[in-house]
């Protein structure tokens, strides 16, 4: 830079950082294409970070992302709920890649705010139709055989605001009630075996320790299959907003069942018809009747880039990317169209395509500046093909709130701006 050595390199960097962020909205910002023939000062001049010392290893005992990434955050939609303590925030899918969601960006949904619990004060009780009711401490649970598994957690209401038509402009808002992390925990079947199930046992009730006392009924078959009681995500303890110190992991099933701050499991012979499986998480259909216990999240996908919050900025070479997932198994194939469904191509799946996990896909393409109508459709290992929104509405109407896995359309305009639209 032209100015001589400044002792206050830090504040200078802050200034530059702010400027860079402000310029992020300009098309072409950050490209190296400056005026033809004119040398790039970022190359010809020695930069601050190339001259002055950076922070020492002792400055960031728990590291955070670069401040140039500070726009990459969860966001909420204030008009959606009456109170932020019973509400939801959204994962910034358009800023992420790969399949693992950083813990601090995982969307969160609470019904009574975030319970802050000292693990030493946490207890898990199992009682009801068992041979011996038990109480476990976190220390007890950490002494049991563990498993590690990567699964998506999707809120049953993800995309729920879109049943009546295109409403929110950004995949963070239309599809961001989903995250995917590696959980470490103890199979629920081991805990149940410790207590010993009685022959009449058919259902479990999971309950949280938070101020909503969140409770859901879970069929025993699922509990004995692949449910984990997890204490870690992405290699470290659960985050408080994800249920620290203990939560249920119910692979492939709607997020509401993944009870956080899990403190009690009651074993019974019928479901409890809790508020969260009667008033909520039941799906009202057009005939006035409602489906209940719609546990599984069906195959779904979304293109995360380009999308309304991530417009196209360059003509020529571009990368289209997105996520696909299914609660019924693994993703086998993803197709993408750029012309509103007239023609489709197979997307390239990269990285692991695990069972009940987010799966990353790409289409590398050239853009000449024409309008695009982009869609993706997923096919899972059971042969389920992601339906269009109209196909779903034909069966369910528009008032079922939950389980909207219809195909999403993005309209990319000539200037690269991208909008959430519906097409016919």
């Amino acid at each position, binding site marked *: 830079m032209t100015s001589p050595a400044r002792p206050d390199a830090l504040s200078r960097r802050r200034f530059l950082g702010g400027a860079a962020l402000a310029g992020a909205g300009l098309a072409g910002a950050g490209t190296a294409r400056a005026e033809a023939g004119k040398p790039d000062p970022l190359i010809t001049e020695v930069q601050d970070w190339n001259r002055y010392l950076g922070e020492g290893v002792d400055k960031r005992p728990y590291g955070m992302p670069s401040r140039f990434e500070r726009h990459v*955050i969860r966001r909420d939609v204030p008009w959606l709920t009456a*109170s932020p303590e019973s509400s939801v925030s959204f994962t910034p899918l358009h800023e992420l890649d790969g399949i693992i969601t950083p813990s601090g960006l995982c969307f969160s949904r609470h019904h009574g705010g975030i319970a802050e619990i000292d693990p030493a004060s946490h207890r898990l009780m199992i009682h009801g139709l068992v041979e011996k009711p038990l109480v476990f401490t976190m220390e007890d*649970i950490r002494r049991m055989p563990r498993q590690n598994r990567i699964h998506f957690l999707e809120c049953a*209401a993800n995309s729920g*605001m879109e049943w009546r038509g295109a409403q929110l402009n950004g995949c963070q808002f239309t599809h961001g009630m989903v995250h995917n992390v590696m959980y470490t925990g103890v199979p629920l079947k081991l805990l149940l075996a410790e207590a010993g199930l009685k022959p009449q046992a058919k259902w479990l009730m999971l309950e949280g320790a938070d101020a909503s006392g969140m409770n859901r009924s879970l069929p025993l078959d699922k509990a004995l299959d692949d449910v984990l009681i997890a204490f870690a995500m992405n290699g470290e303890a659960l985050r408080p907003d994800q249920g620290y110190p203990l939560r249920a992991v119910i692979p492939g099933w709607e997020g509401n069942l993944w009870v956080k701050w899990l403190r009690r499991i009651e074993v019974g012979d019928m479901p409890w018809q809790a508020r969260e499986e*009667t*008033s909520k998480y039941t799906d009202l259909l057009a005939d006035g009747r*409602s489906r209940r216990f719609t546990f599984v999240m069906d195959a779904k996908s979304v293109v995360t880039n380009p999308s309304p919050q991530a417009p196209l900025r360059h003509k020529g070479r571009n990368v289209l990317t997105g996520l696909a997932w299914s609660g019924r198994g693994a993703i086998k194939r993803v197709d993408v169209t750029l012309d*509103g469904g*007239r023609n489709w191509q197979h997307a390239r799946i990269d990285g692991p395509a695990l069972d009940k996990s987010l799966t990353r896909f790409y289409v590398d393409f050239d853009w000449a500046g024409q309008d695009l109508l982009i869609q993706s459709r997923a096919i899972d290992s059971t042969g389920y093909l992601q339906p269009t929104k109209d196909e779903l509405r034909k069966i369910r109407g528009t008032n079922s709130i939950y389980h909207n896995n219809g195909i999403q359309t993005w309209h990319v305009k000539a200037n690269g701006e991208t909008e959430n639209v519906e097409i016919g």
Partner: protein
Amino acid sequence: MSRSASPLLLAGFAAAAVLAAAPLIAQTKAAAPAKSAQAHPPAKAATGAPAPAAKLGLGREALPEEIQAWAISVRPDGKGLPPGKGTVRQGDEIFQAQCASCHGEFGQGNGRWPVLAGGQGSLRSDRPEKTIGSFWSDLSTVFDYVRRAMPFGNARSLSPDEIYAVTAYLLYLNDIVKDEDFELSDKNFTSVKLPNAAAFYDDDRETTEKAFWGREPCMSDCKQQVTITGRAAVLDVTPDAKTAPKVD
């Protein structure tokens, strides 16, 4: 934002803090009937899981007092109900003091707070109003939910008698009982049925949406013409970066 001002708001979240409406199904037939209820679950764990041969010997027996302190769930058949009673009149008084500031004197809901009464006959309409009276299936859910989660911000503070009384008042607000002297108790609780009880059925997607499986989708020249029929920008209800939380 008022309900009328946000036409497309997600009803599921709208009622976030409360009692709204839902099912009854008196003896509900389990949704996904667990077929293998076994006295001893298989010791062999899932794929890749450790398979201990015997019990681990971890945890300790729960004492009756501990179970009683935490076991607050109530089922449709009345299992879990504590002894107690309360009248509509008593419930009215408690409701006005503890609940009306959010839910309105008559359960009509203030602002964005959930509506608890009314909406009967609206479930097939364009804008259904899902309340205890119009939508919920079981009275047990009212008791269970009020006991565990209400009042919002001061949960677990009502006594069993107070919860019986508030539940009775909610029945009255929904025209399910007409007499202000009606007394609800653990004795007569299961005799009360909610109007929408029969309107719920277990997940049937694998049957009614069977057509979504096994389709080989069209890959080229799939349609002639494509028209944009709806745009999110027209509504303009997406929060922008300026309103997002500050992070530093």
